Each structure stands twice: as structure tokens, then as C-alpha cells.
């Protein structure tokens, strides 16, 4: 990809900038689509139609909303810490955007094919916690503070099962580079027809995926673990005092985070950009299509859950993490390692 860009642009720097901007364009387009999709999913779960007026089935509703948000007054509370208050939305977006650098979008494009890809991704997403606390603390609002503290506790706790389930995949794959992990899942050899995706390779990886999925629900603040912004009790949690485009950036970062973690799940368990039909519809462009399709399926499941289930309480949330998910993920890790050693 980078060579191609260097050929068509006058300078190397410009090529690099364009190369780095590709995920940004992708996130923006995805966010427009995902917010529309969320509203449509919500509407159909709730037996109504959702946005129908702006464009075909309301596809441009998000654009209209963005325009509205841009025009809104930017309110900063009097007693807020002004620098942190302004900085937090950008940090949260930077954290999720930077993590896209190591995601292999297709066989032809990866931001940076570094050998510690998974490690980098997990490390950089920890910044999300920091920015949420920053937003909460800077707002100088008790609801925000409660939301921020909940989010800190939640994200730090749920990082443990996430990392353990990711590690168990790494044990099987034998590489931290997400491109290598994807490449080793090519082909359709399991039982003669199933693709070589990791989830089919090892029964314990299925368990690992369940743990991973529950943890990413919590990490990206989705129902039933959306406590940091639980609107029925905490108004809007750490976003309470934000308005206009700053709030819009939080929204964008939340959706970007959802996509990021779903894509990570796709790379680790569902073969990344590999076609489910072997060499049929294969190649860099189709690879991108399959990758996004699988990612969006996971995003859809997250939305589906959100509009169906109630929310856990904070102590129950912690109990699930420390009493169930963490021991289960450790045991599962050992079992996977044993399976790999024997077979």
C-alpha cells in the first residue's frame, strides 16, 4: 500500500500522511453508518421505524445530527478544569484511533506491521480509561465523577480477562503481529470445509471467545455493562457536562472503540480478512470487505444486546469479572496451552 501511495504522490511524507489517514476516513464513514444502524436496530427491536425522513430510510440522519452538533453552543461549566475538560475528548479519540494502526484491514493494508501489535493495541486502549476519568474529574460534577470512577474500576478489571483471552489466542498463533495471526488462518482444511479460523481450531478457543466478547462489551461500555454512562441513574455519567461537538467526539470514540474491539475479535478468532470460502472471493479488496463484514456482525450483536438486556449493578459487575471471568480465563489459558502441547 505504502509503495503504491509513494508512486502516485509527489513526496514520501505525503504518502505517509495519506497512509495514516486511511483508518480515520474509515472510522468516520463507519461512525456515520453505525450510528444510523444503531438507531435502526433500536427502532426495529422496539417495533417502530426509526429515522425515515432524511434520505432513503433516513441514511443521512447522522450527517444532519452532526451538522446540528457542530452548530451547538460549546458550554464549559464555570468550575470545570478548562484544560482537562477540553483535552479529554481528544485524548479518548486519539486512543482509539491510534490503536487502529496495527489492525490488518486486508492483505494489502496494515498501518504498521509491528511485531508487538497485540501488546501495542492493549496498551494504547488503556488510555481510554485515563481520558474517561479526565473528563469525569474535569467536569466537576458529581454524576460525572461517579461515572468516571465506575468506568475506571470497570475497565481496569475487565482488561484482565480480555488480556488473558487474547493471550490464549497468541499461544495458539505463536505471534503478536496481527498480520501474521491473520495469515496463519488462511485456507479451508478443518473437517474438509470449515475455514482455518482459530475459533474452529481448538474447542477451548470458543470459550476464550465468549470470555473475550463479554469483556469487550464491558470495555466499550455497552449494555449490560454500560454503567459509566447508565442514563437511568447517572444521567449521562462522565458525558453529563459535555455538549455540542465535544460530546459528539465522545460518541465517535465510543463507536470507534466498539469497532476496534470487534475487529480485534475478528482477527483473533474469525480469520481476519480471510474469505470464509477459501480462495473464492479472495484478494486485498475482497479481504477488506470480509473483514468489515465480520466486524460489523459483531458490532450488530453488541447493538442487539444493548436494546434487549437490562444493566448490571456495579458490585455485580465486579463479581462477574473477578469471580467468574478471571478464574475462567486463567483455567482456559492453561487448558489451551495443554491442548497445544498434546496435539
Amino acid at each position, binding site marked *: 500500500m505504502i509503495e503504491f501511495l509513494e508512486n502516485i504522490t509527489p513526496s514520501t511524507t505525503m504518502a505517509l500522511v495519506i497512509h495514516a489517514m486511511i483508518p480515520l476516513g474509515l472510522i468516520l464513514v463507519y461512525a456515520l453508518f453505525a450510528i444510523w444502524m444503531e438507531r435502526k436496530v*433500536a427502532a426495529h*427491536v*422496539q*417495533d*417502530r421505524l426509526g429515522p425515515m425522513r432524511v434520505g432513503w430510510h433516513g441514511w443521512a440522519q447522522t450527517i444532519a445530527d452532526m451538522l446540528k452538533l457542530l452548530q451547538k453552543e460549546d458550554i464549559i461549566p464555570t468550575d470545570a478544569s478548562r484544560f482537562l475538560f477540553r483535552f479529554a475528548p481528544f485524548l479518548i479519540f486519539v486512543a482509539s484511533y491510534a490503536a487502529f494502526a496495527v489492525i490488518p484491514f486486508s492483505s494489502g493494508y496494515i498501518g504498521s506491521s509491528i511485531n508487538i501489535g497485540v501488546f501495542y493495541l492493549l496498551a494504547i486502549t488503556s488510555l481510554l480509561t485515563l481520558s474517561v476519568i479526565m473528563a469525569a474529574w474535569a467536569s466537576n460534577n*458529581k454524576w460525572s465523577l*461517579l461515572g468516571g470512577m*465506575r468506568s475506571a474500576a470497570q475497565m481496569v478489571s475487565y482488561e484482565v480477562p480480555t488480556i488473558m483471552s487474547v493471550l490464549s489466542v497468541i499461544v495458539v498463533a505463536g505471534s503478536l503481529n496481527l498480520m501474521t495471526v491473520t495469515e496463519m488462518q488462511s485456507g479451508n482444511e478443518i473437517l474438509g470445509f470449515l475455514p482455518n479460523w482459530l475459533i474452529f481450531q481448538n474447542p477451548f478457543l470458543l470459550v476464550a471467545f465468549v470470555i473475550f466478547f463479554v469483556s469487550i462489551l464491558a470495555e466499550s461500555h455497552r*449494555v*449490560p455493562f*454500560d*454503567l459509566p454512562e*447508565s*442514563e*437511568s*441513574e447517572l*444521567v449521562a455519567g462522565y458525558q453529563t457536562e459535555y455538549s455540542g461537538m465535544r460530546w459528539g467526539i465522545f460518541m465517535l470514540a465510543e463507536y470507534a472503540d466498539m469497532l476496534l474491539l470487534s475487529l480485534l475479535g475478528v482477527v483473533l478468532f474469525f480469520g481476519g480478512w480471510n474469505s470464509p470460502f477459501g480462495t473464492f472471493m479472495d484478494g486485498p479488496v475482497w479481504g477488506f470487505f470480509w473483514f468489515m463484514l465480520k466486524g460489523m456482525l459483531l458490532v450488530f450483536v453488541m447493538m442487539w444486546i444493548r*436494546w*434487549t*438486556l*437490562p*444493566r*448490571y*449493578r*456495579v*458490585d*455485580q459487575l465486579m463479581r462477574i469479572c473477578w469471580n467468574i471471568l478471571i478464574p475462567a480465563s486463567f483455567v482456559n489459558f492453561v487448558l489451551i496451552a495443554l491442548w497445544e502441547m498434546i496435539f
Partner: protein
Amino acid sequence: MKLTDIASQGKPTFFKEHQNKLYQSLEDKHTTIEELDVDDPLNSKMILNMGPQHPATHGVLRLLLELRGESIIKTKLDIGYLHRGVEKIAENKTYQEFMPYTDRMDYLSPYSNNVAMCLAVEKIASVEVPERAKYIRMIGSELARISSHLLWLGTLVMDAGAISFFIWTFREREKIYDIMDNLTGHRFTVSHARIGGVANDITPEAMGMIKEFINTFPEELQNYHKLLDRNRIFFERNENVGVLTTENALNSGAKGPVLRSSGYAVDLRKLKPYSRYDDVEFQVPTRLEGDNLARYYVRMEEMHESIRIIRQCLDKLPKGPVRTDNAKQAYPSKDEVYYSMEGMIHDFLMTDTGICPPEGAEAYHAVESPKGELGYFIQSDGTGHPWRMKISTPSFANLQVLENILDGEMIADTVVIIGGVDPVMGEADK
């Protein structure tokens, strides 16, 4: 230095005296002021103002919470933000004129309020109500009960986090609104009961709609049961949350489903049957646990029983007039008003003076509204206006329970507990 001086933390700028008093009462609730809390040297307590503007306080309820982390140490309630002086308005209205105001009290079940008020006036003025009107009132009240409980169910589950449920229950409520539209002429504030009967007979369309509703609704109710009865998250959010013992419930004067879910089976429809509740068969759902889950079960069962009552009422519905044919006690029919001189004079007199109970008469009549015992106490001075009308509302009584059961729970439970107690602020503040 007093580290726990709440009043200085609050810094009120609005209604200073009231706010200071409230902060002080929170401070004084369980203990006196201590110099330094040994358990809490860092003074990590926080005062949180929940409401009156808050998405989950069912209107304008205000809670003052003293928190340590996520758990509530003490709670104080502040109500009265929706006070409209309904009782005073009543003193300046004829009985019939006041009736539409009752719709606005418990606006989730206006029909029960109309009936409660009319029954009290009929008691004080000794008005006989035709049989058919009694059954129509029962049908209307039970529909109102289902409507109110559906809204309670939707908000309870929504407060627990599942927003879609609210819209599903509203789909069913919409059907009840349509029935009310056909039955009474209004969807929301029905004002259907009249002193001495009801405004009009059930139209054939309304009859058809009610029959269809009672045939389809139990199935829908089963769907709700399927969705919630085995829902692990819903269970964990409600089980052992906001436990109210029978003793506490009686002491704080809880009423209706809140009292029944604490193990005290009292239902005025059984205890002191009014209208024709003694002619229909139904049960009083009661649970012993007293937690939020018990309140959920009790109200769900009540909806089943309401369907049973409506079904029996439709079977037994007698023929005859729907309003008493005594021009001194009730409005004449529109046919009389338009085509006879006497009818017009009576209509004018009813509107101008209204029904006049004997001088010095007093009466209290209570009905079992969806939220509990709704009673009207009327003192008459012989004119067409009540000399004093006191309304005893179940939401006001049930709110007293909150201060009791919120202490020691988590902050996330507040919304669920408020949802379980199901107060309507229009009724509590009057």
C-alpha cells in the same frame, strides 16, 4: 472542626431556608453530629442531589442522598415540586366541576380517580347509582389499573436498563387509550364518571375493543413473563433490593401493592367492597418477601386478576340506565336538556349549584386505586361546594417508605426501588 457538616457542603442558593432545613434533616436523620468520624477520617462522604430534574425519578421527586462511594448511607426525600393546591381548588368548585381535576392527580389511571371522587360524593349525598353504571365503572377502573401497571412495568425495566421494554408496554397501553377514547371520549384524561353514574353507556365499538383486548392481553402478559421471569440480570437487580418488612410497611403507612408485597393482604375491593366488587371473583396477590421482585410479581398478578374481573363484569353487565334519573342529584340526559324546558332548567341548576349534600355531613370513601387506597374525605356546609375536601393518596403514603428502604442500598438501586414503589408525583404532591 466538624468534618461532617453537610449544610456547609451544600451551599444552597435557591430557597435558602428550605434547603438548609432539608440538609439539616439529612444530617440529623440517624445520628447527632460527631466531631470526627473515626471510620471515615478522610471524609469521603458525598451529598448527592437526585432530582427534581432527573431522568429516573418519575417526575419531580427529589432525593438527597448521603453517599460513601456507591452505597447510600442516608436518604431524605423532598416532595412538593408538583403541588397545585388541588384540595383548595375543590373548595371553589361544585362537585361535578371538580371531577376533571381528579384526572390530573394520578394521571396514569384517571378512571379510578374519577370513580373514587364520585363514590365519595354519592356517599355524602346519598345518591343511588344504577347497576349498569357500577359495572361500567368497574370495567373502567380495571382497565385503568392495567394501564397504570403497564407503565410501572415499563419504567421499572427501563430504570434497570432495558429501554426497549418501555416501548413494548406502551404498545399495549396504546390499546387501552384507544378503548378509553371509544368508551369515554378521551384518551388520557377520561373524566367519565359522573355523580350518580357515568357519562355515557359503553358503545358497541368500545365493547368490541374491550373484548378483543381481554382476549389478546393475557398472551402479551405471558410474553412479558417469559422475558423477565427467567432473566438473570433483571432478577439480580431486583432480588433482595429495597426489602420492606411487614412491620415497617405498616408503620410507614404503605398502601396497595407495596403493602401486599410485604406480606399484608389488604385490598379494599375485598375488605370493603364498593360498586359490585362483591359480585365478582378475584384474588388478592400477596407476597412475603417485601423486596422489589415481590412488588413485580404482585403487580403482574394483579393484571391477571384485572382481566378476570373485566371478563366477569362483561358477562354480568345488566341492562338499564347509566345515570340516576333524579334531576336533583345528577345531570339529566342531553335529550331532555335539548327538548324539554324542565330538562334545561335542571341542567342549568346542576351546573350552577350542583348537588348539595346536607349541612354538616361528613363522609370518607376510599377505593383501591392501582397504587393503593385512594380516599376522599368530604365535609359539607350544605352548599354545592365542599367545605373541605381532603384527599388521601397512595403515592404520598408509599413515598414515606422510600426513606426507610433506600438506606444502605447502592446508588444504582435507587432508580429501581423508586420504580418498584411506583409513585406518581401528581398524586403525591396534589
